[in-house]
């Protein structure tokens, strides 16, 4: 240990807060170093002088006044718990309001059932109030116009009755009419009340008419809806509509008879392929058509296939016809015979030509 190191440890050495190892090293160095020993001596002297600092005497006045203050403080009763600072008249309402607000905000927004309905109701009332007023104003304007135009017609036709009812009628009506004697009388009698009265009447009218007005709107919209609903069946019965459209649009309300008629007309026109398509679509439809329609369809189909030369399909169509309608069996048998002859003829033709190939 050198002098610099020792000097750093000297105060701790005096204070006796060094570990035994360091303490021993310092002691060893001090024994061999008169400079460090002298430094230690100086510190000891300063320390002793500091420790011997005399206690100043506190004046009796100070002591007695402090003692009195302590007695006063001790004699003070502790304030009752409700008089503590945190129950101050400002703090309590502020904090409780803050808590109430935060609860309201929290539950009002996350949809806690009980509170939510309350807040919604409050919100609705708040929202409705100005709306109602606005509505009343705008509607009153409209209404005045409406009544005025109506009354022009009225005033031409029934001016007498209107005049008679004038007292009961609202202000809007009386405006376009020459002022009736009763009303002018009322105005002169109570000029201050008159505008208020008028306003009141106007309001009554507007509220009443608002209801009617809304009814009118709703009824007209209902009518529109009904009309649009009825438009669809009209289009389905349209002859030009395609099969797929029919199937997609109105599968439940198919007019089988109409379809059969269409197929038969197509057959009569000689458009056998169109007739076949119509008939097949009719027979393949998912709620099967009634038996008489089926029978007619099979018959038409069989005839068409026969005409186009697709004899196998014609035979199956005729067989189906006889199944659906046994009373047609005779006709079917007759047709089958014809087909057999046709087929034999065609086979003959076929055998005749085949060897040539």
């Amino acid at each position, binding site marked *: 240990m050198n002098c610099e190191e020792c000097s750093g440890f000297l105060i701790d050495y005096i204070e006796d807060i060094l570990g035994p190892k360091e303490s021993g090293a310092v002691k060893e160095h001090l024994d061999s170093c008169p400079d460090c020993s002298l430094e230690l001596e*100086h510190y000891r002297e300063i320390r002793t002088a500091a420790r011997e600092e005399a206690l100043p005497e*506190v004046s009796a006045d100070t002591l007695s006044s402090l003692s009195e203050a302590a007695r006063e403080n001790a004699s003070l009763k502790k304030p009752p718990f409700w008089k503590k600072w945190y129950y101050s008249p400002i703090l309590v309402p502020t904090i409780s309001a803050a808590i109430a607000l935060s609860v309201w905000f929290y539950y009002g927004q996350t949809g806690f059932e009980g509170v939510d309905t309350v807040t919604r109701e409050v919100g609705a009332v708040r929202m409705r109030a100005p709306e109602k007023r606005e509505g009343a104003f705008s509607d009153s304007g409209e209404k005045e116009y409406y009544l005025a135009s109506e009354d022009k017609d009225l005033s031409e036709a029934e001016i007498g009755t209107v005049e008679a009812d004038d007292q009961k009628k609202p202000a809007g009506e009386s405006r376009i009419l020459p002022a009736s004697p009763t009303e002018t009388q009322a105005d002169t009698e109570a000029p201050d009340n008159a505008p208020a009265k008028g306003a009141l009447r106007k309001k009554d009218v507007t509220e009443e008419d608002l209801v009617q007005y809304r009814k009118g709107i709703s009824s007209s919209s209902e009518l529109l809806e009904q009309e649009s609903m009825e438009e669809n069946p009209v289009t389905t019965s349209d002859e030009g509509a395609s099969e797929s459209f029919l199937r997609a649009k109105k599968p439940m309300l198919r007019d089988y008879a109409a379809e059969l008629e269409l197929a038969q007309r197509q057959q009569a026109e000689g458009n056998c392929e169109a007739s076949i398509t119509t008939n097949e679509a009719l027979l393949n439809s998912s709620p099967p058509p009634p038996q008489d329609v089926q029978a007619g369809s099979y018959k038409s189909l069989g005839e068409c296939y026969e005409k186009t030369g697709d004899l196998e399909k014609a035979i199956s169509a005729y067989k189906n016809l006889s199944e659906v309608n046994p009373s047609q069996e005779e006709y079917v048998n007759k047709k089958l015979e014809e087909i057999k002859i046709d087929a034999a003829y065609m086979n003959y033709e076929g055998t005749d030509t085949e060897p040539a190939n």
Partner: protein
Amino acid sequence: MTGQTINTEIGDEKAMRKFQNGDAQSFDVLLKRHSGGVLRFIMKMTGGSKLHAEDLLQEIFLKVIERKDRYDPEQKFTTWLYSIARNHCIDYLRTESYRRHRSLDAPLSNGSEGGAVVLEIVKSGQRAQDEEAYDKELKELIDIGVKGLKEEFREVFLLREVEGLSFQEIAEITESPLGTVKSRLRYAFQNLRRVFSESGYFEQKQKAKEGV
């Protein structure tokens, strides 16, 4: 008489607890026991007159009375008391130095000036030849030296060497780590020794010893 002996035997913490429970006599015990020490600390810390120090002492003990319910009996009473005293002194010094800096006609006296005063004392040949005179001079030098110390060194030196508090208590009072307290005490001693050396006190004493 017996009552008084019992009272003086009461520990600081127990006395304070009794005062918390409304026993004003216990406060008197604490006041008697610690007012002198606190007054000394105030005087050395602020470097002001005794009269002024007593005003501060009164303010500090009034704080003790007012804040008695905030005292935690688990804590050492002296730690709590000297914390209040130390903070009060520092607040006072702050406002005082602010006030002094604001006034142009009152220059601040600091450590180097203290050293100059000591040198003047030495040169003027006021030094007495007997031990008593040396002791007196020693105390004067310590006063001057302590006054010249920086605030953070001064409080540690006073609390440790004059008031005899433990390092742990000082660390709590000054709100500093224990290591910092120890190193501050070292700096304080080294600074004081320099003041003494500059004054020629040790030299003179050595010569006197040799002469004898």
